[in-house]
């Protein structure tokens, strides 16, 4: 594995008045890696991710994304990352093509790039017949794939996925993970939060957050060995049991 560091945090902290949502987390993510960011509800993983993608300001600590400082170089960071939310947010009253063109334009791709890339994408997703239909008419699984494809349309260095498989069936989830593998294979670092422990097994490395701190960070096989567990589920339960914060 290449060891180029694309995400590096140092004692990154977020405090809401008395409440410490994220408490001095320090970790590194390498290029091309699939990094699982796990934690129970309220553990602080969403807040941590929001700081990394630049929609929430850290209270203290340092972080660099794709080599850029999160305080100073927010614009460069925005260009180097992709983001997909758990709502698979697309514009439902725009067509598939219009959505691709719109988001491609936001990330500064020119018209001919958008044209060739979107044609290739529509073909790859098998959406030729749906290209001019409104996104609202697509099934959830297709929206999810389209949302992910749009998040990596501008070939970002890192893509952040916030619980990307909520509400879809196991087969679609499996297909979705194939897309994640493909992206990682193409050198895109994947930073993914999830609730599903079977998905944690697919990651190269996972971190588990409990009450605002990272309790464990390693490859799934190493974690299982360390905690003497059969599955990631067991590891997670062992760690999360100590949590004091609930939802």
């Amino acid at each position, binding site marked *: 594995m290449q060891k180029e560091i694309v995400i590096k945090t140092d004692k990154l902290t977020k405090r809401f008045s008395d409440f410490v949502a994220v408490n001095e987390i320090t970790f590194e993510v390498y290029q091309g890696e699939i990094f699982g960011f796990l934690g129970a509800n309220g553990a602080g993983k969403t807040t941590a991710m929001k700081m990394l*993608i*630049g*929609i*929430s*300001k850290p209270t203290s600590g340092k972080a660099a994304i794709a080599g850029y400082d999160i305080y100073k170089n927010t*614009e460069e960071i*925005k*260009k180097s*990352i992709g*983001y*997909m*939310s*758990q*709502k698979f*947010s*697309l*514009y*439902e*009253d*725009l067509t598939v093509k*219009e959505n691709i*063109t*719109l*988001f491609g*334009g*936001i*990330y*500064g791709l020119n018209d001919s790039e958008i044209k060739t890339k979107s044609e290739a994408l529509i073909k790859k997703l098998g959406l030729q017949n749906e290209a001019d239909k*409104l996104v609202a008419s697509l099934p959830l699984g297709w929206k999810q794939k389209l949302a992910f494809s749009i998040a990596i349309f501008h070939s970002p260095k890192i893509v*952040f996925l916030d619980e990307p498989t909520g509400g879809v069936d196991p087969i679609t989830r499996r297909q979705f993970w194939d897309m994640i593998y493909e992206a990682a294979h193409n050198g895109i670092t994947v930073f993914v939060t999830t609730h599903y422990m079977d998905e944690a097994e697919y990651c190269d490395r996972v971190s588990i957050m409990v009450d605002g701190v990272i309790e464990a960070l390693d490859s799934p096989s190493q974690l299982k060995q360390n905690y003497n567990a059969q599955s990631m589920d067991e590891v997670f339960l062992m760690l999360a049991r100590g949590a004091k914060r609930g939802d």
Partner: protein
Amino acid sequence: MKQLFNFIKKEFHHIFRDYRSMLVLLGLPIVQLLIFGFAITNETKNTNIAILDNAKDETTQQIISKFENSDYFDIEITLKSNDEIEKEFKSGKIKLAVVFQEDFQNELFHSNKAQIQLIADATDPNQATTLVNYASAIIQDYQTDLNSENKLPYQIKTELRMLYNPELKGAYTSVPGVMGMILLLISTMMTSISIVREKELGTMEILLVSPMKPYLVILSKVIPYFVISLINVTTILLLSVHILGMPIQGSTILLIAITIIYIFCALSLGILISTITDSQLAAMLISLLGLMLPVVMLSGYVFPVANMPIILQVISNIVPAKWYIIMVKSVMIKGLGISGIWKEAIILLGMTIFFIIISIKRFKIRLA
């Protein structure tokens, strides 16, 4: 620049693909203006009245024929006794009854004390007052005619001139009011809803993570509604001039200029609302209850501000529509120039800047 253009195009897609809101956006102003201009009006014409003539002499006949000849009244029924009066009011056929005392002419010429009783249906007090005033004027008129033959030693004559709206047309109040209301409805409510919708759908988050500048996102939301508002203003003005017969006395350019200030104010208010709430429903309720009601109640559109309790008069000052309606009336009806309205214009501009500053502050708090 290209991004902004693409986003404005996208915004128009949102608007045009939703036929219902499209219809509301462009149809509502026309419907409102016509309803308020034609149907709801304080003018009273051809009101049905009843006459109870207990005297049946020459004088009463002359007065009755004066009533008959006026545009304001139609004599629906001639009654025979006092008992019938209430029945007619209850049936709703008449709004006013004119009762002459017995021996009217005799009393008038010999004891100088002839009496006419005017009975009005005060379920609508405004209308009742108006009708009584009209009726009194007709009787007064007759009296003046009588006295013209034998001159009174002392006489005060009142001469009425209704400035700016000599025909007392209802459109003169409804057009400025509808403009104040419609622009607020479209600019504020639609802008806040369309911004909040992006928050609800989660696309706003995607945009904030993207290199797209937040102010461009907001600008692209605002421009389409600005354009639609201008279209609406044009329709309203064309309708009011050509259909409601209300001319623009002052400068049309000035009228458009103050309208643009008001649209800016309404748009910035819409942005402010969108920073307060994350739900489309809440945004709509705030816009409707928080804005429409004050516009209708406190702007001076329906009820004169001067007649309100002091507290409401004070509150009415923070309603942007109040200042706009004052300006529209000044320019459109009185024909005043910029020197007559600069104060109101500055107040409205100040409000706009205030709303924008608060919105930016709130937006930053959300990000932190």
